[in-house]
């Protein structure tokens, strides 16, 4: 008989070790799945995890893509981790990401064709505010009307998508675009461009912002009262109130920060890698960032690595589809396995497994 026994103190070794073990188990289970699909499991795993970084032909293209994809994931996930640690569940980062992109792009396009050096910072602020405002809707509703922030933030994603469609086909449509949907290309105008800062690395302003966010979040959680209060509110809400934490303020703060960061990620994306507002501008970064946040155990450094790993499976997955004709759902299942194993193994940091029978206690 297998029993779980609660550890008196959470195990540090296991909370660091489980992500690695989860990746390993995902490779094994995923390999079995690929084998069942008639693929060579070792080759498929190699294409997903190894080739994007080290393949002689593809690496030069896919290596910069790693940071391009990881940047927004990390930036959004860091914001989400604040709320998740406090037990405040912002599931609508995708919508805040869209709103950030819309507001930032609209600000930049309003001054078209200005090349002022102040334009891009202005767009960034507009993006931050856009995401922040979109997150304030669930935040204020939760604080003042006791609604559920999970539902409200999630449903607002679909509202945001509708707004994106109307912008791409209507009020932000490129006047010189022969009626095709989509805005002017921001990355072709030096005033609104978010360029690759170091050639061949994929690093743009958003990636730098993600790194800064990691450091800031690390300091916040390790050293600052606010980070302490966020953790306290998540672990023991009554103790937090006793200590003097105002739960409503924390909701507004955490949702606000995660919304603003998601908005910034949207702005960096629309002004850089995506270039323009299109109907299908959003590709799910806001949802994937939830996985990244948990994969990184809501720890800033963990999120950094989790974002890179997640980006790698995306790029590798695309590569596997391209080179080996692995079906796209199989890649998605593979990514799902990663989250599954991580959450399943999570139990080990708080419990130890006991084999064998013992008297009922």
């Amino acid at each position, binding site marked *: 008989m297998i029993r779980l026994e609660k550890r*008196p*103190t*959470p195990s540090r070794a296991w909370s660091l070790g489980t992500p690695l073990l989860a990746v390993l188990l995902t490779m094994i289970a995923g390999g079995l799945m690929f084998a069942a699909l008639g693929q060579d499991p070792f080759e498929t795993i190699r294409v997903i995890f190894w080739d994007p970084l080290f393949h002689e032909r593809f690496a030069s293209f896919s290596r910069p893509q790693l940071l391009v994809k990881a940047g927004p994931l990390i930036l959004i996930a860091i914001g989400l981790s604040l709320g998740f640690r406090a037990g405040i569940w912002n599931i609508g980062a995708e919508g805040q990401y869209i709103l950030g992109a819309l507001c930032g792009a609209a600000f930049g396009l309003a001054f078209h064709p200005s090349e002022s050096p102040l334009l891009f910072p202005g767009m960034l602020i507009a993006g931050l505010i856009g995401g922040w405002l979109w997150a304030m809707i669930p935040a204020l509703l939760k604080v003042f009307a006791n609604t559920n922030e999970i539902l409200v933030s999630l449903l607002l994603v679909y509202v945001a998508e509708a707004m994106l469609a109307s912008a791409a086909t209507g009020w932000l449509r490129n006047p010189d675009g022969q009626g095709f949907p989509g805005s002017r290309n921001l990355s072709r105008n030096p005033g609104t461009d978010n360029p690759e800062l170091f050639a061949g690395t994929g690093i743009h302003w958003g990636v730098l912002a993600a790194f800064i966010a990691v450091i800031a979040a690390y300091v916040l959680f390790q*050293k*600052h*009262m*606010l980070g*302490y209060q966020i*953790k*306290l509110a998540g*672990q*023991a809400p*009554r*103790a*937090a*109130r*006793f*200590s*003097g934490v*105002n739960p409503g303020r924390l909701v507004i703060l955490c949702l606000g920060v995660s919304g603003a960061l998601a908005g910034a990620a949207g702005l960096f994306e629309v002004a850089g890698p995506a270039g323009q507002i299109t109907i299908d501008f959003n590709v799910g970064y806001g949802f994937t960032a939830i996985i990244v946040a948990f994969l990184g155990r809501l720890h800033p450094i963990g999120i950094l690595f989790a974002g890179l790993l997640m980006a790698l499976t995306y790029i590798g997955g695309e590569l596997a589809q391209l080179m080996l004709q692995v079906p796209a759902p199989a890649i998605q299942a593979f990514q799902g396995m990663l989250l599954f194993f991580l959450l399943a193994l999570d139990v080990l940091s708080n419990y130890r497994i006991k084999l064998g029978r013992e*008297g*009922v*206690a």
Partner: protein
Amino acid sequence: MTAPLLDLRGLTKAYPGVIANDDVSFAIQPGEVHALLGENGAGKSTLVKMIYGLVKPDSGTMALNGAPFSPPEPRIARLQGVAMVFQHFSLFEALSVAENIALGMENPPKPRDLSKRIRDVSQAYGLPLDPESLVGDLSAGERQRVEIIRCLLQDPKLLIMDEPTSVLTPQEVEILFHTLRKLSAEGTAILYISHKLEEIRALCDAATILRLGKVVGACDPKQTSAAQMAEMMVGKSLAQPGRDASEPGEVLLKATGLSLPAASAFGTPLRDISFEVRAGEVLGIGGVAGNGQDELLAVLSGERPAPAVAIEYDGSDLARLKPEQRRGIGILSAPEERLGHAAAPDMSLTENAVLTGATRKGLATNGFIGWGRARAFADEIIERFDVRTPGNHVAARALSGGNLQKFVIGREILQDPTVLVVNQPTWGVDASAAADIRQALLDLAQNGAAVIVISQDLDELLEISDRFCALNEGRLSDPRPARGLSMEEIGLMLGGAHGMEEAAI
């Protein structure tokens, strides 16, 4: 004497790292009220769990009426005539008394028959209880009667009671004792666990004393003084908390007509509460839990905002001040619930030291926590209040209840409060640690602080309070000097609104 009802021989049970019971042997006679005494962690709970079939002994034997007895689960123990009333009730608040009792029975009779049997039993044993009332509306004493009647319906030969009086008013205790004596006269044996030695002297025929898992003695409680029993339990003589008499100073904290609606459906509203407490004074607030104690602590700590001008500190209005601001001016508090309210279970003791100590101990500068200072503060608490723990990195949940209580109380006292409000300061703490905590509270008052002690333990309150008042259904009685108050007067102050009169017998 006849053959024993239950005979325990050499019972041993070890858990990883600790031997809970070590070669425990004693016997319970039919119809005897047998006390089981011991400090926290002495192994009382493990022992009764073995008798009730919740835990299997590693070695040793039990015999019930001369036949071998080793219940693999509580159901079998109940079938053989062993019943148990736990300290914490397992009742559904949204169901009626009869429904709750039916849930605990193997083959519940039809609702109408059951209601009749409940009425019969409650009449026969003087336990007033209406089978149709909702458990959510009952007082703690009435809830306990539900549990007792649930046991009595099985016609037990041995009834185990774990700390039954901790939640009762003096009058309810009298009713309970009356019932237990009647049961005992009819031949039902009772194994009675309690910390309250005077009760044991009043009720029990025999006592077995456990210390660190071993039987260290037996006595006839009627012939032995409470102090002697306490010494046997602890293994050393206990210092009686005390202090020099001194005149109380000026009024530090004052509540006037404080009312507050209930926060939830099962909460208690505070109704027109007025009191004042002076520097150097200990104000004791008695009453059964659930009568507004948590709510009173929450408005005093600042967790719940109070109506304007209802609470004044040193002449200035407190109502708008947040918990941290109150701590800043010296008003500290320690709630009853240790895990999850006074302390965060998964956080280390160092982090828990920051929980209330951040402002007053200067543990944070510009919002940045000085972990070195926090660790030093945690170590100071551990050292001064004898908290048994491997170190300040240990999670709060890993500490035993008593040790965590010492940490929580110590954390507030070492911040040198001018007003300290504590709820159940010695709940679940063993005798010697409880004495230390009470002494620390008295020392605090001696040094000029105003101390408010909310407790269900009337002996404790009478021991340390200068003035005593009672909280009942959210109302506070007028404080009276504690010296010279009799238990009967206190009972009347507690209101005793719940089933004061025994049912007609």
